[in-house]
């Protein structure tokens, strides 16, 4: 592989670094889990774990539950998100920009908060349930399949909306006009022309939705009530007090990773066969609808926006309600916040401490790794590319488990430390920054690097003097996503935290489980405010009103 004349320079060092980093925290843990899944207390090599999984109804039902609820959610999400994207890009909608921001915020808040909020509204003791019951209207149960579906759909449709909108913005308006000149109007035009062009993108979005829903632990855990899905099984098997079984948990985790990887590869395969390049001259200009169509379009958009933001707003509202212990009390005030700041200040500080360290590492490594994957075309950079994207198919709970299983014993004991949580954040949230940095780098001619080298600068100086400054817009728009999703990370932290390293999301989750709804709401509000503030700063800096997924 090494030819004569290949020197060990800065980029060789970065390549080596990335190899060590992903080797330690991705490859070794995954291999270890794979080995674990093929072992038992008694045997070195056995299929027992898999046999047990597929032969017990309890587990196969969880598998079926996962597939069922996630598939339904993905389909529903497309049915809601695609029309929303189409309507908001092709027609004039009042308050379009505000709606866009609301949708982004609801997308970026963690799903389990949605579950929590819907329980408070529509659960057994829910506010709306009580009101409706008091006037004699029965409310169907929010728990189980229906509730999970509701939360997934309202949390995840923004992905489809964002992806589709992004793709529609790249469709040349004259294509639609050409279709009209050939006699295709209205729905027929959309189905025959616009839809096929954005289909690969919708598919990519649907895959993200599928993977996120499939991996989500918090939602089924909170609102599932017996409707158990695979992430819940993995968690239970691992922490079960009646004999935790790391081998079996590993096997279930492997099954999840394989399913996720298959979905991911299927999407890649389909998209690679159906990809269009378009010359973009005239973007679509929103048209003014008239009469009933206009009213309907507005109604649809507003309804979705309200439903999506309702849980968030409700949580903010109840965070100001007075509490007595864990019970609600009359009137409004700051009692929940006072409790939070006296009792849970540590988890707030942890969130920021871990988050800031992680985002710094993500930005530095992500930018460097993006450079290697784009500029150094060799076998190694292809492998690195796979490593970087791999976290997409590893559910958070499982990733936490992976790290924990590998680093809870010598030579390297990391369990219980802040480092292991930060490592998990870095690997899981780096893809956003890498993808976005790589995208901008592809648009920058490599000759500026060469120009700098020709003027006597080595590869490291060149990178920091010239390449990185030019990449900044791409780095920032990736980093904002990494940052917000780090703040919201729950599933792997749940596996990795201890009393000292508890974060806000973990505390919220615990409070909800314990019924401490007031403090949970207050913490959630703090989280939401942090997130919205970060977004606003991002919009201000980049002078944009959108994010790129």
């Amino acid at each position, binding site marked *: 592989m090494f*030819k*004569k*004349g*290949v*020197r060990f*320079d800065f980029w060789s060092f970065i390549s080596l670094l990335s190899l060590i980093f992903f080797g330690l925290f991705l490859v070794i843990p995954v291999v270890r889990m794979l080995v674990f899944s093929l072992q038992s207390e008694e045997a070195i090599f056995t299929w027992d774990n898999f046999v047990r999984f597929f032969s017990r109804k309890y587990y196969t039902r969880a598998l079926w539950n996962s597939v069922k609820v996630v598939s339904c959610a993905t389909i529903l999400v497309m049915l809601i998100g695609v029309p929303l994207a189409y309507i908001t890009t092709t027609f004039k909608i009042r308050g379009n920009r505000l709606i866009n921001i609301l949708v982004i915020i609801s997308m970026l808040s963690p799903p389990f908060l949605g579950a929590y909020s819907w329980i408070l509204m529509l659960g057994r003791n829910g506010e709306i349930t009580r009101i409706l019951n008091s006037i004699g209207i029965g409310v169907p149960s929010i728990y189980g399949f229906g509730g999970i579906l509701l939360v997934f759909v309202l949390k995840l449709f923004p992905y489809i909306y964002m992806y589709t909108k992004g793709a529609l913005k790249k469709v040349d308006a004259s294509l639609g006009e050409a279709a009209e000149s050939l006699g295709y109007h209205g729905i027929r035009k959309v189905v025959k022309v616009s839809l096929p062009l954005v289909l690969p993108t919708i598919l990519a979005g649907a895959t993200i939705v599928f993977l996120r829903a499939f991996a989500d632990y918090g939602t089924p855990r909170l609102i599932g009530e017996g409707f158990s899905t695979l992430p819940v099984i993995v968690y239970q098997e691992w922490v079960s007090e009646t004999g935790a079984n790391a081998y079996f948990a590993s096997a279930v985790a492997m099954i999840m990773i394989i399913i996720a990887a298959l979905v991911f590869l299927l999407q890649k395969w389909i998209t690679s066969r159906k990809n269009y390049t378009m010359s973009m001259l005239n973007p679509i200009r929103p048209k003014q609808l008239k009469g009933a169509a206009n009213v309907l379009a507005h109604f649809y958009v507003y309804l979705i926006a309200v439903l999506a933001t309702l849980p968030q707003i409700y949580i903010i509202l109840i965070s100001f309600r007075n509490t007595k212990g864990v019970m609600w009390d009359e009137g409004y005030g700051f009692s929940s916040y006072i409790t939070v700041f006296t009792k849970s200040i540590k988890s707030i500080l942890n969130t920021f401490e871990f988050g800031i360290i992680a985002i710094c590492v993500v930005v530095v490594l992500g930018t460097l790794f993006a450079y290697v994957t784009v500029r150094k075309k060799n076998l190694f950079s292809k492998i690195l590319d796979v490593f970087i994207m791999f976290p997409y198919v590893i559910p958070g709970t499982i990733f936490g488990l992976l790290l924990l299983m590998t680093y809870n014993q010598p030579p390297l004991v990391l369990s219980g430390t802040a480092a292991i949580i930060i490592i998990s954040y870095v690997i899981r949230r780096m893809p956003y920054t890498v993808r976005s940095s790589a995208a901008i780098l592809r648009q920058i*001619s490599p*000759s*500026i690097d*060469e*120009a*700098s*080298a*020709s*003027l*006597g*600068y*080595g*590869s490291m100086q*060149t990178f920091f*003097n*010239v390449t990185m*400054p*030019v990449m900044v817009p791409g780095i920032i728009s990736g980093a904002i996503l990494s940052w917000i999703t780090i703040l919201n990370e729950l599933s792997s932290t749940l596996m990795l935290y201890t009393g000292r390293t508890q974060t806000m999301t973990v505390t919220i989750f615990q409070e909800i489980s314990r019924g401490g709804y007031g403090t949970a709401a207050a913490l959630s509000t703090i989280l939401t405010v942090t997130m919205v503030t970060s977004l606003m700063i991002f919009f201000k800096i980049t002078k944009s009103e959108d994010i790129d997924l």
Partner: protein
Amino acid sequence: MAVAIHINEVKKIYENNEVIRNLSAHIMPGELFTLLGPSGCGKTTLLRMIAGFNSVEHGTIAFDDQVINNIPVYKRNFGMVFQNYAIFPNMTVYRNIEYGLKNKKLDKAEVARRVNEIMETVQITQYKDRYPDKLSGGQQQRVALARAIVVQPQVLLMDEPLSNLDAKLRIEMREAIREVQKKIGITTVYVTHDQEEALAISDRIAVMNRGDIQQIETPERIYSRPYNTFVADFIGHSNRFEGTVLGQGNGVTRIRMQTGLELEVGGVKPLSAGTSLLVYVRPEEFIFTDEAHGMKAQVLVKRFLGKYIHYVVDCGTGTHVEVTADTSSAERIHEPGETIFLGVNTRRVNLFDATTENTLLEGVESHV
């Protein structure tokens, strides 16, 4: 100050494909040396090997007597002007030019003096605080040139620097580059696919094809005495005729062209009677004459182009023959359908071996 560049038996192989084949060339101190050839001929690959962006695995490249094969790019001390200019978008014009000097441990006043001086030379002083996106193509080109030469490199490399400019600006910049290059006397390797540009700007040209140099010569010689038919066809236009040697004697070679016209050409290598060869005649090397001294041709197309008249004629060889006549010296303009008689300026024609297609003239070498 100026160095020579010695390229010795260099090869470049990509995936079993020899893109540079055992190539040697010696570039003299201070000269503007052009690598000219069609796309894919390896000219840019060779330039990037000199720069160090492409590695040299076979053969050597040396600046004077220092072999640079294993010297990393940033220590080679050359300036480069890129096809897309590669101006740093995050720096102003001034900062761009200053960038290379900041690396050289010079005192601030000296840096400022040099930057200001070079900005004067390439006439961009007025834009010094602008960012590249506010500059025209020609201005960016000047910044690129200034940035490359301000560090006083040993060698200046230019990769199709004018190909992104419009026709008028191209000529203007060509002159500017030539002027600056001569003024500072820096050894320059210039890559282009544009033969007119190469002829206008170069001290010497290396015509490349398929990874090898076909001929290295001055612009005048490369045009008038191409070493092989590739060079003859690539530079300008040539009409190709088959011919046979009738005999040699008294310093001349008598040749009969396939059209029946007989020529006496001087300075030809020894050839035996009956040898077949190729006679290359450029459009301006025909002489309008009478039946006794010329071959018969029928005018197919006439185009009046002002300074000269361009004809396409049929000499009975099955291919179209292009002929030009100076408007000032033409007796009359011939119309399509007319029969004319053409002679050939025997001092200007080129003769090539029918099989190797290399020159048969004495004193024409591929490498000088």
